[in-house]
C-alpha cells in the first residue's frame, strides 16, 4: 500500500520542513511526540508515490496538528481548525477516488489523465482546489487560519505558517503539474484561481494593518504571501513554478524569523499587543536587527533575498502579459510595507508604554532559530541562483525547460537579470557610510528623558494619552471607501450562518428521537402504508 519515491521536489519541501524543525529544536517546548509525528506525516506527503500514501500523510498531518493546537487554543478555534482541515481532506479523498474510478490505479506514474472524461475534469479540479485553498488559506476558506495562528502555541504558529501552509502549495504542484499536467488544465478556471490568490493577498494585507495583536498581523501576512504563491503557480508555466517555489522558500524562512522574533517578545514581556509594547530597541537591539532583516525579506526589498522571489514573480507576470494581475500584485506588495512598518514601530520604536520589571530573560535558543533564518536570507541574496540550480532539477523532472544563468550570483528573470553579489556589496558599502555619518552626528542629538517630553501639535500631552504611533496605525485607512468595505466585512458571518443552521436543524431533527412509543408505532404504520400505496401497481 505504501509507495515512496525520492524526488527533487519532495527533497526541497522536506528539507525546508526539516530546517524549520531543527531550528526550533533547541527551544524547550511541549508535544515532542506529536510534533515528530507531524514531521513524519510531512515526510510521507512529500515522498509519497501514490495517492493513498499522500492522503494518509495528509490526514495524519491534520489530526496530529489538531492535537497540538487543541492543547492551547479554545474549543471553538480548535473545532474550526479540524473541521476545515478534515473538509480539505475529504475533498482530496473525493478527488482521489474519482480519479481512481477511471484510471484504476493510485500510482502517480500510472495515472493517465486522458482516461478521465472531460465532464469529470472540472469537478476534480474544483475538489483539489478546495483542498489547496483551505490548507493555504485562500479566501473564502481562510476563516480558520487567523484564530488558529493566534491561539496556538507561539512556537507552533511558526510551523503552521512556515510549513503547513506550504503543504497546500506542494499539493498544487504534485496534482496540477506532476499528475495531471498543465496541458489538460483549462486556463479560464486558473485565471480565476490567480485572481483569487491576489485578491486574498490584498484583502489580507489591509486586514493585517488594522490588527492590534502581533500574531494576528503575522497570520494575515502569511495569508497574503501564500496568496502570491498560488497566483504565480496558477500562471501555469515553468517560470511561474520557479517563482512560486522561490517564494515558498523565502516565505518559509521569513516567517520562521518573524514568528520566532514575536515569540521572543512575548516570552520576554508577556504582552501580545502592539498597544502594550514599544521602545524595546534599547533593551533588545539584536532582536530589533533580526526583525528588520525579517521585514526586509517580507516586503521583498533589495538587498535581501525577499527581492529575488518578488523579482521572479514580476518578470513572470510581465512575460505572460498579465498586466492587471501585475498591478494587483504590486499594489498588495506596497500594502505589505505598511504592516511591516507597524511591526517595527509598534514593538521596537516609539516610547515605551510599560514597565520593565517583569521581563523574563530570553534563552539563547530563540536567537539560534532566528539566525538560521537570517543566514539563509542573506546567503540567497548574495548567491540567488543557488536555489535556481535546485529548481532546475525539479523543472527538468517535471518536463519543463531549465533556466540558464551565467553565474551563481546572477538571477535571470527572462528578459531582465541582476547580480545579487554586486547589489549586496554596494548596499554594505552605503550602509557603512551611513553608519559612519550617524556615528559622527551622534553627539549632536538630544536624548529624551521622559516620554511626555515632546510637543504634540502645540499641546502638552498628559500621561493618559497613548503616544505610541503603532497604536493607531491603520485606523485612518478605514476612511478610504473600498478599504472600509474590506475591513468591516468578514467571511465569518457566512460560516457562522452555516454552523447555526446545522445546529438548529439538529435541534429540530433530534426531537424525533424523543417521541413516545405510540407515536413511533404510528410513524412505522404510516411509513408502511405510504410505501404500500406508492408501490402497488
Amino acid at each position, binding site marked *: 500500500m505504501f509507495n515512496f519515491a525520492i524526488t527533487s521536489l519532495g527533497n526541497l519541501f522536506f528539507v525546508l520542513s526539516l530546517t524549520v524543525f531543527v531550528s526550533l529544536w533547541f527551544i524547550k517546548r511541549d508535544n515532542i511526540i506529536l510534533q515528530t509525528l507531524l514531521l513524519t506525516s510531512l515526510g510521507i506527503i512529500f515522498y509519497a508515490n501514490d495517492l493513498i500514501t499522500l492522503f*494518509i500523510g495528509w490526514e*495524519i498531518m491534520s489530526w496530529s496538528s489538531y492535537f497540538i493546537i*487543541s492543547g492551547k487554543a479554545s474549543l471553538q478555534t480548535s473545532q474550526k481548525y479540524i*473541521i476545515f482541515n*478534515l473538509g480539505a481532506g475529504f475533498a482530496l479523498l473525493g478527488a482521489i477516488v474519482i480519479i481512481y474510478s477511471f484510471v484504476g490505479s493510485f500510482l502517480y506514474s500510472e495515472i493517465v489523465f486522458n482516461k478521465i472524461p472531460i465532464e469529470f475534469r472540472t469537478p476534480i479540479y474544483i475538489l483539489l482546489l478546495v483542498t489547496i485553498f483551505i490548507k493555504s488559506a485562500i479566501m473564502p476558506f481562510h476563516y480558520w487560519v487567523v484564530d488558529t495562528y493566534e491561539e496556538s502555541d507561539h512556537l507552533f504558529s511558526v510551523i503552521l505558517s512556515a510549513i503547513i501552509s506550504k503543504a497546500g502549495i506542494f499539493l498544487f504542484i504534485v496534482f496540477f503539474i506532476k499528475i495531471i499536467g498543465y496541458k489538460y488544465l483549462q486556463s479560464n478556471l486558473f485565471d480565476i484561481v490567480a485572481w483569487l490568490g491576489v485578491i486574498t493577498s490584498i484583502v489580507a494585507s489591509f486586514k493585517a494593518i488594522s490588527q492590534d495583536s502581533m500574531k494576528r498581523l503575522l497570520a494575515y501576512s502569511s495569508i497574503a504571501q501564500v496568496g502570491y504563491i498560488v497566483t504565480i503557480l496558477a500562471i501555469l508555466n515553468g517560470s511561474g513554478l520557479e517563482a512560486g517555489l522561490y517564494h515558498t522558500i523565502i516565505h518559509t524562512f521569513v516567517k520562521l524569523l518573524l514568528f520566532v522574533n514575536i515569540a521572543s517578545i512575548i516570552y520576554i514581556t508577556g504582552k501580545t499587543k502592539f498597544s502594550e509594547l514599544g521602545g524595546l530597541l534599547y533593551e533588545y537591539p539584536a532582536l530589533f536587527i533580526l526583525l528588520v532583516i525579517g521585514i526586509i525579506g517580507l516586503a521583498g526589498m533589495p538587498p535581501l533575498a525577499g527581492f529575488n522571489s518578488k523579482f521572479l514573480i514580476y518578470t513572470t507576470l510581465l512575460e505572460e502579459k498579465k498586466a492587471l494581475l501585475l498591478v494587483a500584485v504590486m499594489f498588495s506588495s506596497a500594502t505589505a510595507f505598511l504592516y511591516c512598518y507597524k511591526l517595527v514601530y509598534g514593538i521596537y520604536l516609539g516610547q515605551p508604554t510599560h514597565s520593565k520589571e517583569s521581563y523574563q530573560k530570553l534563552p539563547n535558543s530563540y536567537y539560534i532559530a532566528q539566525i538560521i533564518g537570517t543566514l539563509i536570507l542573506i546567503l540567497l541574496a548574495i548567491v540567488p541562483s543557488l536555489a535556481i540550480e535546485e529548481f532546475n532539477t525539479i523543472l527538468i523532472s517535471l518536463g519543463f525547460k531549465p533556466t540558464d544563468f551565467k553565474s551563481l550570483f546572477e538571477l535571470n528573470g527572462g528578459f531582465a537579470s541582476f547580480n545579487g553579489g554586486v547589489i549586496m556589496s554596494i548596499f554594505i558599502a552605503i550602509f557603512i557610510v551611513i553608519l559612519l555619518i550617524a556615528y559622527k552626528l551622534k553627539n549632536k542629538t538630544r536624548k529624551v528623558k521622559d516620554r511626555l517630553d515632546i510637543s504634540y501639535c502645540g499641546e502638552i500631552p498628559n500621561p493618559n494619552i497613548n503616544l505610541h504611533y503603532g497604536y493607531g496605525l491603520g485606523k485612518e485607512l478605514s476612511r478610504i471607501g473600498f478599504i472600509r468595505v474590506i475591513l468591516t466585512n468578514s467571511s465569518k458571518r457566512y460560516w457562522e450562518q452555516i454552523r447555526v443552521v*446545522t445546529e438548529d436543524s439538529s435541534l429540530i*431533527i433530534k426531537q424525533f428521537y424523543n417521541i413516545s412509543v405510540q407515536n*413511533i408505532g404510528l410513524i412505522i404504520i404510516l411509513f*408502511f402504508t405510504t410505501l404500500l400505496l406508492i*408501490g402497488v401497481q
Partner: protein
Amino acid sequence: MSILYFIAIPLLASFLTLFFKNYLRYISVAINAILLVLAYFIIENLPITENLSFDSPLAISFVLTKGSAFFMTLFIGISFLFSLYNITQNSRRDIFILTNMLLIGVIGLVLSGDIFNIYIFFEISSITAYILTSLNRDAKAYNGAIKYMIIGSIASIFLLIAIITIYLNIGTLNLITIGERFGYMGANTQFLVLLSLFIGFGIKTEIFPLNFWAVDIYQATSSKINTLFSSILSKAYIFVFFHIAYLWNVDSKYLLFTAMIGVISFGIAEVSSLTSKDTKRVFAYSTLGQLGVLFIGFSYNNITIMTGAIFLVFMHSITKLMLFLSLDILEQRFGQSSIEIFKQFKSPFLIIIFIIGFLSLLGLPPFGGFIAKLTILSGLAGVGAYIMMGAILVISLVEAVYLFRLLSYTKDTQPKVKISIPLLQKAILASIAFAIIYFGIFPNALLDISQQVASSIIGGVHV
C-alpha cells in the same frame, strides 16, 4: 463436525450454569473460547448444509457459508471479549446467561437456511434484548424495555406477514427454494413481501425512519449492554436482511431504495448527534449513522462496495465494543453519562483509546476505519454513484464535529477525577486498539477475507 454445536453448546451451557452459579462467569468465558476454537476448525470445509429431518415446510436447515461463518466468528469473538471484560467486574450473574442467549439468537439468525427459523431466532434474540434492556432495574430501564418490546413486536408482526404471504403463495419456507420460486408470485405480492421484510428488519437494524425508538433504548441501558446491541445484534439483522435480498435476487430498484434510506439514515443520525448532551446518546447516534453506511454498502450489487461494507462491519463492531466498554468505565465511576464527564476524567490511557476509536469511526488514516471507508468510496465511484460518495464525505464531516468536540473536552482545565482501570480490562481495550491500528496499516489479509465473504453474500448460498 456438525454446525449445530454452535447453537447447542451455548444453549446447554446456559442451562448447566444454573447449577454452578459460582463458576458461571468462568464457564461463560470458556464456552465462548471453545466456540472460537470450533469456528476456527470448521472454517476449513465450507460451505456446509445440514437439515434436521422434518418434512417441508418445517424442515430446519442450517447453512454455513463464508458469509455466515464470518459473522458467526465475529459475534463469538466479541462475545468472548465482552465476557472476559465482565469477569473481573462485580457484574450481575444474569448478564452472562443473557449474553449466551443473545449469542444463540444471533448465531441461529445467521446460520438459518429457512425463513421460519429466522423468525424463531429473531424472537429469541429480541426477547433477550428486552431483558438486557431492563437489567438496570430502574424506571428508565423498564420504560425502555417496554418501549423496545412494543416496537419489537411490531417488527415481528411484519416479519410474520412476510412469512405467511410467502407460504400461502409458494408453499415453502426454505430460503433457496423461495429464491427459485420468487417470480411465481404476482408483482404486488412480491412488493408486499419485500416491504414487510424491510419494515420488520428495518426496525431491528435501526434505520430511519424506523429507528426513533433506538436512542432511548441505548440511553436506558448501561453502556456495557449497548455494546451487545451495537456490535452484535444490529449486525446480525443487517446480514440476514441483505443475505435474503441477494438470495432472492430482488429487483435493483429495491436495493436502490435501501441505499437511499441508508444515506438518509446516516445524515439524520449524524446531524441529530451534533447537539446531543449525553455520551450514550452520542454513541447511539453514531451507531445509527454507521448502520446507515452499512446499508449503503450492502445495497450495491458490487463486490468492491460489499468488501468495504464487510470490512466496516468488522471495524465498527470492534471499535464500538472498545468505545462502549471505555464509556462503561467512566459511567461506573461518575454514575452518569452526560458529555460533561469528558471534561472531568483523568486517564491518558482512556484518552488514547477514545482518540483511536473516534479517528477510526471517522475513517481517518492510519486506522482501520479508513480502509473500510476508502473501499466503499472507491467502489461507489466505480459504479458511478458520485452523489452517494459525496454525501458520505459531507456527512462524515458532521460526524467529525461532535467527535472532535468530545476530544477537545478532555483538555478542559476542570479539576479531574483519576480513573484506575484493572489490568485485564486495560489489556482488552489495548488489544482492540492495537487491532484497529494493525488493520489500518496491514489491511490485506482482512480485505481478502472480506472479499470472499462479500462474494459469498452476493453470489448466493453455495459460493
